[in-house]
């Protein structure tokens, strides 16, 4: 009997990036019902950058956090309701306290891969309230395996019950994942997970590399619905895990059905790896930037690919969407 893998499904959170945070309550309800039926253990819901992140910087949500989370709560039976929380966007008093009142079960507190110490109070609060609490390191291709272990150990110390590393830019190849996950499994006493993006077509391959290296938690979304090129595709992941003999508790037929429902009900476009997403992955830029880069580049008539490489050169992190305008204006200025 092979290892059990804990599946978390952020279709209704990461996918919100793909529709500029315009997921409606009705769409949340429909997908929650389908995912719940399929036995998905954790369904993550919210603005693309998580709780309290609706903003001009990242994009304003169609629905408030309250509507998104209370709607999801109503339509999830066995599945747990999860949220993504980035300190610097979400505060404990304004956001996290309320989310707990609305009935979330799983709280994943995230920071840029080198900034774990900003998660201390949010992780502590979540544990204090008895919630299942994970630490999430984002944009992890920007840190060495050794540094990632140090940062993850801080989150472990603050009380995280597991650590998920995100390939937020879709920049990893399988060997990169193997090296980092192995180091984390070795350096931590708590479970390790992986959240893959698909810019270089490695979403599933990287997820498999992660569990072969000892990870026991994986994220995936229906049809890969998510920021930029999209995420590891959940229904494919489930099929591959079945084929490899891992246990996960998700029903294959029903998750395939859920993906069909998601495609029909929540996706204006099924994610494909667009040309600019390949460049975004190569440049190591946060996938959530894609809609902004696309819009602003067109407005000022500059080549998106130049914008991605410049953003990559400047080592921008998730949350620095305002820099896109500056980079575009800078390219315009240099051209004239």
């Amino acid at each position, binding site marked *: 009997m092979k290892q059990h893998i804990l599946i978390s499904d952020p279709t209704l959170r990461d996918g919100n990036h793909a529709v500029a945070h315009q997921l409606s309550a009705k769409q949340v309800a429909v997908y929650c019902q389908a995912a719940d039926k399929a036995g998905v253990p954790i369904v993550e819901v919210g603005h693309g950058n998580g709780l309290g992140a609706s*903003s*001009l*910087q990242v994009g304003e949500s169609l629905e408030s956090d309250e509507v998104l989370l209370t709607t999801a709560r109503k339509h999830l039976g066995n599945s747990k309701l999860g949220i993504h929380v980035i*300190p*610097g*966007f979400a*505060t*404990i*008093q*304004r956001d996290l306290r309320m989310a707990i009142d609305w009935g979330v079960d799983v709280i994943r507190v995230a920071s*840029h891969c*080198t*900034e774990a*110490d*900003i998660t*201390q*109070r949010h992780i502590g609060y979540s544990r204090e309230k008895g919630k299942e609490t994970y630490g999430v390191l984002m944009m992890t291709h*920007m840190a060495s395996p050794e540094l990632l272990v140090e940062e993850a150990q801080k989150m472990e110390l603050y009380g995280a019950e597991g650590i998920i590393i995100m390939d937020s830019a879709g920049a990893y190849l399988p060997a990169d994942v193997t090296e980092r996950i192995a180091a984390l499994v070795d350096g931590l006493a708590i479970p390790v997970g992986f959240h893959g993006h698909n810019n270089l077509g490695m979403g599933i391959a990287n997820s498999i590399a992660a569990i072969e290296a000892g990870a026991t938690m994986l994220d995936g979304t229906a049809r890969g619905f998510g920021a930029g090129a999209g995420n590891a595709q959940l229904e494919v992941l489930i099929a591959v895990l079945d084929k490899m003999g891992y246990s996960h508790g998700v029903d294959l037929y029903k998750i395939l059905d859920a993906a069909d429902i998601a495609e029909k009900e929540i996706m204006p476009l099924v994610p494909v790896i667009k040309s600019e997403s390949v460049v975004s992955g190569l440049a190591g830029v946060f996938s959530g930037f894609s809609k902004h880069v696309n*819009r*602003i580049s067109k*407005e000022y008539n500059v080549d998106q690919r130049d914008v991605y490489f410049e953003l990559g050169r*400047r*080592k*921008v*992190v998730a*949350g*620095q969407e*305002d*820099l896109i*305008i*500056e980079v575009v*204006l800078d390219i315009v200025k240099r051209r004239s």
Partner: protein
Amino acid sequence: MSKLRVAILGSGNIGTDLLIKIQRSEYLECVLFIGRNLSSPGMAKAISLGVKVSDQSINAIVKDPDCCDLVFDATSARDAQHHWAILKKLGKIVVDMTPAKVGGLCIPAVNLNDSIAQQNVNMVTCGGQASIPIAYLIGQTHPDIEYIEVVSSIASRSAGPATRLNLDEYIETTEEGVKMFSGAKRAKAILNLNPANPCIDMQTTIFAKVAEPNIEALALAVEAMVKNINSYVPGYQLLVSPIYENGRIVVMVKAQGLGDYLPKYAGNLDIINCAAIAVAEEYAKKAANPGAVTFLAN
């Protein structure tokens, strides 16, 4: 003219950088540099500058109440509240660098004169010092502001342990200041830490949703404001003049530090310290004028 005698309470990065700035001031003299540990790097710096030091925290002032006229409180919000209870009775002016908010919020380019009528002024936050002057101008040029959002990105290495632990307080205080000075109905503050090496300069973007954008009037006002701020923060620069993009006003500024005690990229720490010096010097000018110094109740 005799200088105003000041004490610095808190020997961390902020306190030590303030000390170096005060050495250059025509109006201020640091008579006592106070911490809790004589072997800290800040203390060593103060000793090397020949400044009198104490490791007795607030008791150093309680024991010798006549030692100074003004106190920079660069400790923590919690300690600053406790210190104020004591310093108020001793009649000291307090320039509060923490988000304790016992005094009125002070942005020198906007409300310097009102500020020095109070015995305790609060320097808001670094992001607030960078963004609020622009938010204020958006308020001056637009009667109806639905929403203002301010986003600051700072170099990871410029964010010490206290900043990291107090992100929520940073956000709350900055939002309060933005709303108060701009008149916006809603406000949001976001802070990003960027670990890139070489370190990034502090950069702040101000977004606004308004009924009728008046970019021309705003651009003129912003240009004048940047000059005004440059009189106390030389490294404050306009990066993107006001534009109207995707239904929102966007203005971007950056702050480079002077590189006193802290590296130049730490513009976030420099801007709040420069602002604090500016207000302290204004107190000094007022004290130098004949006539009793009276304060509004805090």
